[in-house]
């Protein structure tokens, strides 16, 4: 019943079991590797401030060099709306080019690459709070750190200061990154549309409720296509250390 089928082809065997020392070295390497793989999704996309985020920063060189450290949250936590980048000639409402574009991007894998690029641009903008909002948040944090310091909570105050500085750096880089990416995409779409200049728009394709579809709605209905903002509104702020890049 528990018969294990054996391959019918005759096989040579390697020169027997490995020496204990070899097995020990291999075991250590395997354990380190598996731990690295496991710590990827533990630290990405979310991490704890006290334990896993510092760990992720320490492991970043290894994760990035080896292309590990992925979060693997496929279709999680919820499958959401898709996002498109559209290009318009300034002053016009007509879309001259869009990403992704089924009619132009073929084969499907290429279409998906452009689709992922439009998702990246959307995510970059969503993750970046507006400058004013961010500055208010930072001021609150700094004030809180000052209060802690006055109250004799030096360790807590120092920790809040560190978070404040990290956020400041992340926002500056995020803003620069979004601006540069937007500019590159805009240039490419202008070239494709054969226009000297285009404005970018980011659209979200909402997914209708099943009951709406039962009542006759189509997935392609324009009311499911929203455009909360234009990509061109991103500020360009020089990131720390940018001059040396």
């Amino acid at each position, binding site marked *: 019943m528990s018969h294990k089928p054996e391959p019918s082809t005759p096989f040579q065997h*390697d020169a027997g079991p490995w020496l204990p020392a070899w097995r020990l070295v291999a075991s250590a390497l395997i354990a380190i590797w598996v731990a690295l793989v496991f710590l990827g999704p533990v630290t990405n996309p979310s991490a704890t401030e006290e334990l896993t985020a510092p760990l992720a920063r320490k492991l970043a060189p290894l994760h990035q060099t080896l292309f590990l450290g992925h979060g693997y949250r496929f279709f999680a936590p919820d499958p959401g709306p898709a996002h498109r980048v559209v290009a318009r000639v300034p002053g016009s409402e007509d879309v001259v080019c869009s990403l992704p574009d089924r009619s132009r991007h073929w084969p499907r894998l290429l279409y998906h690459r452009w689709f992922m690029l439009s998702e990246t641009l959307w995510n970059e903008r969503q993750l970046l709070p507006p400058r004013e909002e961010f500055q208010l948040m930072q001021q609150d944090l700094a004030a809180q750190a000052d209060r802690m310091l006055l109250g004799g909570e030096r360790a807590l105050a120092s920790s809040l200061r560190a978070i404040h500085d990290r956020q400041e750096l992340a926002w500056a880089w995020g803003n620069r990154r979004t601006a540069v*990416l937007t500019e590159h995409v805009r240039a490419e779409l202008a070239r494709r549309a054969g226009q000297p200049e285009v404005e970018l728009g980011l659209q979200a394709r909402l997914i209708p409720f099943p009951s709406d579809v039962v009542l006759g709605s189509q997935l392609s209905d324009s009311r499911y296509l929203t455009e909360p903002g234009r990509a061109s509104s991103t500020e360009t702020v020089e990131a720390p250390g940018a001059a040396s890049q």
Partner: protein
Amino acid sequence: MTAGMQAARQWLADWAAAWNRFWFTPSAPQSLGLIRLLAGLLIFYTHLVWSLELGTFFGQESVLPADYRQMLGNGQTWSWSHFDWLPGDGWLWPVHIAGLVVMFLFAIGCWTRVTSVLTALLVISYANRTTGAQFGLDQINSLLATYLAVAPSGDWLSVDQWLRKRRSESEPEALAENADSILFSQPWKSASASGSRPGKSASASGSKEIAVVSVQGRGAPRSSILANIGIRLIQVHLCIIYLFAGLGKLQGESWWNGQAIWYAVANLEYQTMDLTWLADHMWLVNLMTWAALAWETSYPFLIWPRLSRPLMLAGALLVHLGIGLAMGMMTFGLAMIVANLAFVPPAIVEQLSPTARAMAKGTFSRLPNS
């Protein structure tokens, strides 16, 4: 106290033995060979498609800024790509074509020891350069390429294997003539390959026969510990992927209220198959959502017992083919299915693959051009 120590020592010894069995038991190379062939072709296709927009994504004026990765790391990155080192766009095509040649050679199992390592590096390099346009496919391609580079993935269904076999078939006569001297100088090798005891191989009678068996044995694929480690790493990595993909879904409301599959198939940008008729049968959507969630969260645990493994593999086939057909991500779906082959025992892979069997038994070498 002594009894406690003894029990602890026994427990540790049992664990060490189990660890050794899991990682260091030699494995036959069929599963690995089939995974290499299929993953290699997928990797080749994935990168061939970049040819259509090579300058747009990899050039100096790429739609993805060259320093985008650095900006992602707030000015610091260890993520690397050989495209960063090119002096100009004139090098793009030669470097890309060279990369494709390496990947194709890897897929067919030619000089696999070298091409597997190069392919793993290339897959990582391309994915890094296209940060911002990459997705799950690149992660699975890289996973497979890395482990196929660690293991001897060219020992089955490969040009390397075919060449080895051809060499071993062309050499016996010449070697048999000198069998006595071979046996005399290396008695232990022929003895181990023929399965006879060292003392027996040294006998003068039948020495030529032993030498021929020895040489034919050299052409046969090798069962090895490294093959097992490669397969085990794919298995463990796959379990980690499904574990976190499943846990991530448990955070989502739509997976709990049974509507997640609707939001996946009714997404126009993904859609390749009109499944909006499911709106009339939401009970089916609920069922599919729950089945997918149950399958994914239980996969890391139920894939190991022999009893539940076929069920888990059938689930993988359904889920990934479904994603591929309905949501236009066939390459990603296929890559996941190929990775799941790591759980199919080598003997079954061989049974399922008549071509492989024919190759292994020498039919391939009797074809007119070979």
